[in-house]
């Protein structure tokens, strides 16, 4: 596989509290010979909170991000499910509504930009599977993950609403998602089958309703633990933060001890491809994960 080249929209988290997500993404791309051009002009996607405050403004900002991928003539790749949702939803709304697109472009014209709708917007997870291929990934494995039971946690915004995503996520069914399980198998890990794999972690209400967030994240973590998981993996840094950081408070609320390393998807792939410890960045994981490398 060669000549794969994408515009990478990092989102905020990968440049701030989860630097390990960016370093491991870049390391995986390097190992596989995929070229990633950083979209340094891009802004925050609004994380679906700005959308609650000012829907139109968030459309304009997300459209602007996509403009920069279009200018490069490349597809846009995201590494956060919520960035994926907001970018893809903006694209879908503008592409299907010429009047709305014109209103947004009127604003973008003020800064010399135009949204055309020429770039696809996909999460890195699905670009890897669709364009690079599971077999080709399997062929690059240097450190098989065969000694780990890995619980895949899909994260809402890659799989729901399915109508929005189905053209860019391989038609993944939100009730029976399989892509992460397949990816784990390609890296020779044992994927854990558990009910919570396609459920919500509660991140988006963590400030205003921490009890809800703890109940959801704690239930999913305990479900994985009760099904013998050694670690959890997720393509979404917001799920990762919530589930990695809040294990004590979720455990306290649910009356059980919770301790389970939670890895970003590229961290897991980087482990199997034999990337360096610095690139994998397990020291940045809050629940101890350094022993995995």
């Amino acid at each position, binding site marked *: 596989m060669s000549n794969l080249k994408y515009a990478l929209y990092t989102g905020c988290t990968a440049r*701030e*509290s989860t630097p390990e997500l960016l370093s491991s993404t870049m390391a995986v791309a390097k190992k596989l010979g995929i070229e990633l051009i950083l979209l340094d*002009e891009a802004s925050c996607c609004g994380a679906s909170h700005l959308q609650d405050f000012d829907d139109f*403004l968030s459309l304009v900002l997300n459209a602007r991000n996509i403009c920069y991928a279009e200018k490069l003539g490349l597809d846009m790749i995201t590494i956060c499910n919520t960035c994926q949702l907001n970018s893809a939803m903006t694209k879908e709304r503008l592409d299907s509504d010429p009047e709305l697109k014109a209103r947004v472009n009127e*604003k973008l014209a003020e800064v010399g930009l135009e949204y055309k709708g020429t770039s696809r917007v996909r999460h890195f997870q699905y670009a890897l599977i669709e364009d690079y291929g599971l077999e080709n990934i399997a062929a690059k494995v240097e450190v098989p993950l065969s000694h780990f039971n890995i619980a895949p946690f899909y994260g809402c915004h890659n799989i729901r*609403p399915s109508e929005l995503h189905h053209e860019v996520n391989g038609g993944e069914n939100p009730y029976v998602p399989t892509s992460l399980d397949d990816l784990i198998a390609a890296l020779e890990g044992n994927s854990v089958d558990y009910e919570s794999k396609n459920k919500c972690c509660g991140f988006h*209400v963590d400030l205003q*309703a921490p009890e809800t967030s703890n109940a959801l994240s704690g239930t999913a973590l305990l479900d994985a633990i009760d099904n013998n998981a050694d670690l959890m993996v997720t393509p979404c840094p917001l799920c990762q933060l919530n589930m990695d950081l809040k294990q004590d408070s979720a455990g306290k609320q649910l009356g059980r001890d919770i301790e389970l390393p939670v890895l970003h998807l590229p961290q897991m792939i980087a482990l199997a491809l034999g990337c360096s410890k610095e690139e994998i960045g397990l020291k940045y994981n809050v629940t101890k994960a350094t022993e995995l490398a």
Partner: protein
Amino acid sequence: MSDKREITIKAFRFNAETDYLPYYKKYTMEVGKDELILDLLNRLKWEHDGSFSYRRSCRHGICGACGIKVNGKATLACKQNALELVELFGEELVFEPQSKKRAVKDMIIDKGDFWEKHAAIKPYVETKVDPNPESESTMSQEQVENLLDADYCIQCGSCHYACPVVEVNEDYFGPAAFAAAYRFSADPRDEAAKERLEATSKMGPGVWDCVKCYECAEACPKDVNPIEKIAKLHNMQFEQGVAKRNVATKHAEGFIRSIKKFGYLDEQDIVLYSEGLGVVKHLSEAFKMIKAGKVHPFDVMKKKMPRSKNLDEIQKLIEISQTNELK
């Protein structure tokens, strides 16, 4: 060649009057390509066990009575082809009530919480009508389209019992009530919009407790897309000046502060700004993040913050595109 397939149905069985705990019972049957889940429910009762109980009425997707869950998927039994679900889940279909904790008998639940919340948001047009009007009250095409298909809701409860917040927060209105709140508040004849917006802006029962999981959009058999209406209600709170300054509204509005300065969200600032003094409850997590090297508490000059290239464009776009305000 026969189109029929032999499948197993694993049905949730429970009688609140006689059983201490629910149990599951398996039934095998041959299923044809045109059979609906409702047909299977009927055959379970008629051919296997007359005591099996479920709700049904209209048989064509309008009364909303026959909602159940099949392998965890919210299903309106009379609209769902059975073999489609066999394709999805394999040859064992698990039939369960929409909410196991509200089970009364087998598939039948006590839907009282749903109806109570639905009624509480005034799911009707409230207006003072002239009993002898000169002409009929009409709506423009645009006004009708603005209802966004919210009036297709049949109150089947699929979204309500698929919602993880409803499951853990008993005060929460839930997606069906919110969709109805939007539908009637967007109606130009209605005069209770402000009242509904106030009710749905409260912390705990209101829209700010939505986790944005999109389970409701996925569950709805009528494509009502409740979460789209939840986002509308959020925006309407600001448009109509109903939003009060609290942790959730500041969290939503606070994104603009950061994006103006950096292009990116300042993750520390958004917590400080939204919580105010309440920030102390995050101290133990903050220490964990500092220890792992994830945040930089002494970076007062924000030297570690990333900054978008062409930040001036972002600032200009905010200046000319921002439509809402938090007063």
